[in-house]
Structure formats: structure tokens, C-alpha cells
């Protein structure tokens, strides 16, 4: 059942990772398999999408969100940057549009999200925040295993993620995060007490675009017989951004307008035929 964890631990050992402290898999929870979050894609699964999310945005960022919604209503992408294959980043990555796999090793827990081929590394070796790490979409995550009931086996992974870069949004409706990218994401990941095929991730986002910390609960369902699929976003993405506008490629490779009455892009650097 935990063959994957064993295999990864063994591989790490063979690769020369210090074995001074042997990996005792019985101390860790069984999170193997494929974890899915049902549709539709929205940040707070318990609320309707868009304005229905009731995101606690500051007045400034509520205005950003409203402008985004107006642009989307016209066929634009608003503040959602992912249509050109920019990764979700944190915390949006935990929307897990396609399934994820969690691999636990003694010093690092990996969350591999099939969608946009996103990888999270959660360091559980007791390290402190690095002083010289460049920001990234997935950020820098430090975790701590907790044995909640003293049963001799960890049941909860507490994670804090910092050092993020943008642009990012919470979900496709374009709920914005602050441009200063000072987002802090705190998570509590644990199995349901009554159903071991249900994984909870309580996610709290602290961001200057918000008036208060915003906590949502993601509930992932397990498939114990995974069927992994490669998902490379740049393979055939027909959506392009030129200037501030988004367009779509046609079947024969030409540019199509995405919005009604959208003008063509500025061709100032091309010699104009007929002028």
C-alpha cells in the first residue's frame, strides 16, 4: 500500500542521501495514490464562483476584481494569467485541476500536480527560511509533521509557504492577489478520521489584497489505482497575449479575435503592405 513511499525512500538511500537517520515509514501517514478535487474550479469549494466566493478583498483589490470581471465578460482574461501557461502558483495550485500525487520522504514531502506539471517541495527537515532564495510561483514551503493524538504516527502536516512571485490569481474568475507578492499561505493537511480516502487541506491565505486571512477547505478524493497523464501546457496552447490583449489561433494557424469587435494587434514593427 505504501510501496511508493518505500520505493522513493529506497531510491533516496541508494542515491547517497544520508542514512544516519533511517526512514521509518510506519511513522508517516499513507497518502499514496491519486488525489482528485471535483469540478468546478473555484477557490472556495463551498461557495458559488466569481462574486459568489465573497473574497474578503480590500476596496482597492475589489475594484481590480470588478475590472477583471468586466474584461472577462467581454471575452478577455482579466487578471487570470494562466491562459498563456503561466503556472497557477500558490495557493491556486491546490485547486488541483488534474489529480495530484503526494510523495513523503524523511526530509521533503513532494506534491506533484499533474495540471501544468507543477511541483511543490515541502521541507520537513527543520530548516529555517533561506535568505537568498529567488521568489517562485510555487514559493518556498516549510512543513512540520504532527502526531495529533500521540499514537506514534504523524497524522497532520502543517505547511507554511512564502517567497512567491506573480502574477497569480486564486482561480479562473480572476480573484486577485496583491502585486507585492508578500502572500503567506498556511496549510493543515490531514486524512479524514472516518474516511481514509478523503484528504483535507485547510488553506489560509494572508495577503495584502485581503482584509483578513481567508481560510477555505479543500477535500480531495483518493483513487488507489492511479492513471497518470502527461500534461505539458505549451504543447498546443492556442491562446496568445499580444500587448494587453488575448487572441486565439485559428485551425489554420492565423490569429482570431477573442472579443467581439476586438481590433487586430499593433503591427508597427512589420512593413505594411499597401501603405
Amino acid at each position: 500500500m505504501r510501496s511508493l513511499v518505500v520505493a522513493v525512500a529506497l531510491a533516496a538511500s541508494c542515491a547517497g542521501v544520508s542514512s544516519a537517520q533511517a526512514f521509518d515509514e510506519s511513522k508517516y501517514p499513507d497518502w499514496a495514490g491519486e488525489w482528485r478535487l471535483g469540478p468546478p474550479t473555484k477557490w472556495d469549494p463551498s461557495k458559488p464562483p466569481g462574486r459568489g466566493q465573497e473574497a474578503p478583498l480590500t476596496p482597492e483589490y475589489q475594484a481590480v476584481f470588478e475590472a477583471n470581471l468586466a474584461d472577462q465578460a467581454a471575452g478577455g482574461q482579466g487578471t487570470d494569467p494562466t491562459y498563456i501557461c503561466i503556472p497557477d502558483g500558490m495557493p491556486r495550485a491546490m485547486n488541483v485541476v488534474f489529480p495530484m500525487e503526494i510523495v513523503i520522504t524523511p526530509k521533503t514531502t513532494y506534491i506533484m500536480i499533474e495540471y501544468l506539471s507543477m511541483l511543490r517541495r515541502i521541507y520537513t527537515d527543520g530548516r529555517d527560511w533561506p535568505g537568498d532564495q529567488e521568489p517562485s510561483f510555487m514559493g518556498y514551503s516549510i512543513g512540520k509533521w504532527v502526531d495529533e493524538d500521540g499514537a506514534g504516527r504523524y497524522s497532520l502536516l502543517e505547511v507554511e509557504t512564502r517567497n512567491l512571485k506573480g502574477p497569480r490569481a486564486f482561480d479562473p474568475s480572476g480573484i486577485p492577489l496583491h502585486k507585492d507578492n508578500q502572500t503567506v499561505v498556511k496549510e493543515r493537511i490531514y486524512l479524514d478520521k472516518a474516511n481514509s480516502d478523503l484528504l483535507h487541506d485547510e488553506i489560509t491565505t494572508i495577503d495584502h489584497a485581503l482584509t483578513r486571512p481567508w481560510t477555505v477547505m479543500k477535500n480531495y478524493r483518493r483513487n488507489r489505482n492511479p492513471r497518470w497523464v502527461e500534461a505539458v501546457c505549451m504543447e498546443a496552447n492556442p491562446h496568445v497575449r499580444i500587448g494587453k490583449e488575448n487572441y486565439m489561433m485559428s485551425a489554420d494557424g492565423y490569429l482570431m479575435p477573442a472579443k467581439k469587435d476586438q481590433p487586430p494587434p499593433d503591427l508597427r514593427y512589420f512593413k505594411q503592405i499597401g501603405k
Partner: protein
Amino acid sequence: MRWQLAAFIMAGALATSSGTLMAHHSFAMFDQENPIELVGTVQEFKYTSPHSYLLLEVKGPDGSTTVWNLEGRAPSLMARDGWTSKTLQPGDEIILTIQPLRSGAPGGSWNTSIPKFKDGRPLQVTP
């Protein structure tokens, strides 16, 4: 180019046959409130990421042919429902509900639809 597809236009609510939207991006560019039905011939079924694409040859009311670029779900989702890259083949004649680009250009989305073969054959999809 503005397509007059009066023969194919389906008025009314979104006619979808399966699933709820799993979004790679905002689908606002597609007019989800005014879906249309296309009848056409598969030129190519691109089983690609981040979305699959159907290049569908469609005859307009005036007899001219246009190839539509139609965005479907991702293989990551389709494979788990039993789709493969061979589920649709060039030459297949299908009926498909799409959400067209708001611009009127020959593009759209069939993220929430399942095509039907024109001759009534069932789609071979087994999870």
C-alpha cells in the same frame, strides 16, 4: 468573418451533455449562454495539452466550408473517462454543441459536450 449559422443555432439554455467546467483558464472568450450546434467532418483530433482540439470542417448555409478550431477538455481528464487519441478519427461525421467565440471567428469550446456520430454510432468511450 461572421458566420451565419441559422440552421445550426440552438436557442435557449446551455445544452451540455456531460461534466462541469474544469478550467485551465477563464472561458469568458466563449459565449457560454448562446451555444450552437455544429454538424461537420473531423479534419483532425488533437489529443494535446493543455486542451484537446477538434478541427471540424463545417459547411455554411451558402455551401462554403470553414474549419473550426474547437477547444475540448484536456487529455488528463479525458483519459480518465476512457478517451484516447483515436476516439475520434479524421473523416468522422459528427454533431457537436459548442460555445462559440464571442468575436464570431470560427473557434469555440466543447469542454462540456460529448460529440455524437451523425450516423448514430455510439461513441466508444470506456472508463
